[in-house]
């Protein structure tokens, strides 16, 4: 499926390229000497995509489909089983020394739960300054605290918050601190893994606006992982829909939402609520039956076939390739026209 993105990215070299990424986790049973591997979770099973400079790619799909695992592979927190990740033209698996350090500076992440991702015993100023210390930047304390103040201000936090601890702040404020920390080293690429999912709607909108403003001001590139499709539609340029470790559809944002092809994408879109009872009353809802199957024991052929209304006998046997249905619009389903 590596061809899938060439249409979109042929104009400039992408900042991030992921090719045929596989991440299989062993499943163990028993303990001590009796422990043995009884199977594998194919958390990511042959995923390819690329992200252009300045672009925001959305990654969506149900719980357990492998979104976070992809993010962790890119961050080099998990060793992939196969495939290749290239950042700014370089294979990240071979990075060492100064190059590795530079990569770690340029690629940052913002996670879902601002509470558990901030050290409870550090003040806001210490949390935001920590990456600067680790990377030996702004060595002079005065310079460092000026930089921290600038970052807090950039993220819409009042200056007097610097001496507070995480438990003394609201969820939205904690998420802003997490973003300020991610920005400290002046990164190019930020992985937002459910970065707004845990927040109240009124606060969620503030953080979305902040992420959009920062993207514009600092020229950032995002991989935006989320399960709320209306949020993903709002913030992303392009979207990849995942199901059980694979990408089943990818397209420009408008194209994907206006003209979905894969039956799974269609079902996902129909499940998104619209805050208007009149529209809801007239809207089609073909609720997806069943639940996401276990990635340890995925169905044969097309992994979506047990829940698919279009499935025919062939779907149980053959795993479908991505087919190009329009410019840059790919879907892994040969039965699209049957819908």
């Amino acid at each position, binding site marked *: 499926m590596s061809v899938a993105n060439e249409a979109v990215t042929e104009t400039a070299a992408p900042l991030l390229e992921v090719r045929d990424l596989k991440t299989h986790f062993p499943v163990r049973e028993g303990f001590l000497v009796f422990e043995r591997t009884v199977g594998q979770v194919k958390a990511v099973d042959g995923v390819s995509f690329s992200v252009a400079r300045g672009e925001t790619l959305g990654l969506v799909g*149900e*719980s357990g489909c492998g979104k976070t695992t992809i993010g962790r592979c890119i961050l080099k927190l998990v060793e992939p089983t196969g495939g290749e990740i290239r950042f700014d033209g370089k294979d990240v698996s071979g990075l060492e020394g100064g190059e590795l350090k530079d990569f770690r500076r340029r690629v940052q992440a913002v996670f879902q739960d601002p509470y558990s991702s901030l050290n409870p015993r550090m003040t806001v100023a210490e949390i935001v300054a920590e990456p600067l210390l680790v990377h030996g930047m702004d060595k002079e304390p005065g310079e460092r605290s000026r930089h921290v103040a600038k970052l807090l201000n950039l993220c819409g936090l009042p200056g007097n918050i610097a001496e507070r601890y995480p438990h003394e702040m*609201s*969820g*939205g*404020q904690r998420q802003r601190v997490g973003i300020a920390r991610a920005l400290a080293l002046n990164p190019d690429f930020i992985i937002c893994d459910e970065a707004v999912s845990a927040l*109240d*709607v*009124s*606060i*969620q*909108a*503030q953080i*979305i*606006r902040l992420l959009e403003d920062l993207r514009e001001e600092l020229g950032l590139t995002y991989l935006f992982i989320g*399960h*709320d*499709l*209306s*949020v993903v*539609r*709002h913030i992303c340029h392009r979207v990849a829909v995942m199901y059980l470790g694979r990408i089943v559809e990818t397209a420009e*944002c*408008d194209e994907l*939402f206006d003209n979905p092809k894969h039956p799974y994408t269609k*079902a*996902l*879109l*129909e*499940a*998104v*609520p*619209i*805050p*208007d*009872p*009149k*529209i*809801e*009353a007239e809207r089609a*809802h073909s*609720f*997806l039956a069943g*639940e*996401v199957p276990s990635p340890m024991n995925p169905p044969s052929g097309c992994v979506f076939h047990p829940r698919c209304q279009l499935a025919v006998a062939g779907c149980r046997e053959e795993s479908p390739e991505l087919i190009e249905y329009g410019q840059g619009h790919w879907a892994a389903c040969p039965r699209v026209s049957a819908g």
Partner: protein
Amino acid sequence: MTELLEIQDLAVEFVTPIGRVQAVNGISYSVAEGEVVAVVGESGSGKSVSAQATLGLIPQPPGKITSGKIRFRGENLLELDDEAIRQVRGQRVAMIFQEPMTSLNPVLSIGRQLTEAMRLHLGLSKAEADARGIELLSLVGIPDPDRRLVQYPHQFSGGMRQRVMIAMALACEPELIIADEPTTALDVTIQAQILELMKDLSARLGVALIIITHNLGVVARYAHRVNVMYAGRIVERGNADAIYGNPAHPYTVGLLNSVPRMDKPRGSPLEPIPGNPPDPANLAPGCAFAPRCRFATERCVQEVPDFVELADGHAAACFEIEAVRREAAE
């Protein structure tokens, strides 16, 4: 419509080391037989506490119900003794809690947890209760219910655990189910399945339903009436068409403008509500929303607004409704 549940002027406070927390500050709403009512508001606004008060589940101390009546079929639940309220809770009113992980007991089988209340309250034998347990599991859409009955919570996915909670809530044929954020932790597809299931069961079995949520969008399809809460008070109430189509309180308008909408052109900017929710231990004297409100005047900072009736059953507690309406009309 006959009112099944009537909450009148309910107030609940907690005494904590940092001071007195007015968690619920004089709220009133009612639920008719078979009706689906939504309670919407952000974290800390008092949604769960008001539901817990209904079932006598407020830990006292630190909690205290300082005023109000909760009438269920005319009877004030706040005056019942422990034994009587336990009867109501087990049998006539059921609750589905916010976290399905923590509200199922990990060491008891699903069947045991599902049938215990039926044996206790309906006096069924083990065989009768098991048969009904199987029936309930299939009613909520769990395949192979007889095999599932002997399994434990960890063998169920999040969505299936939430279905079990619904089955448990239905076990004693209650007249009212209170569902506290029943789907917040679930995927959109599963969330839609569960809400649809609850609405369907409510219509088929005539059970009334209170759905508590922080996301107005989620309940548009399901609620007949909506109550919007902010800082321990209801600030707007009305039928769903009025609340979504013609909101009058600036907070409700703000909530609706905060969510990106799939039916609107992409790129329409979000209009977040500025600022943060208030600290319930430290509420200012006037309207609690005033510090975040574009329409706030001097009066709003000093006085708490009363409800203004706008149309049949539609009311908002705001001094500046006309200004809000004028802006909406533009």
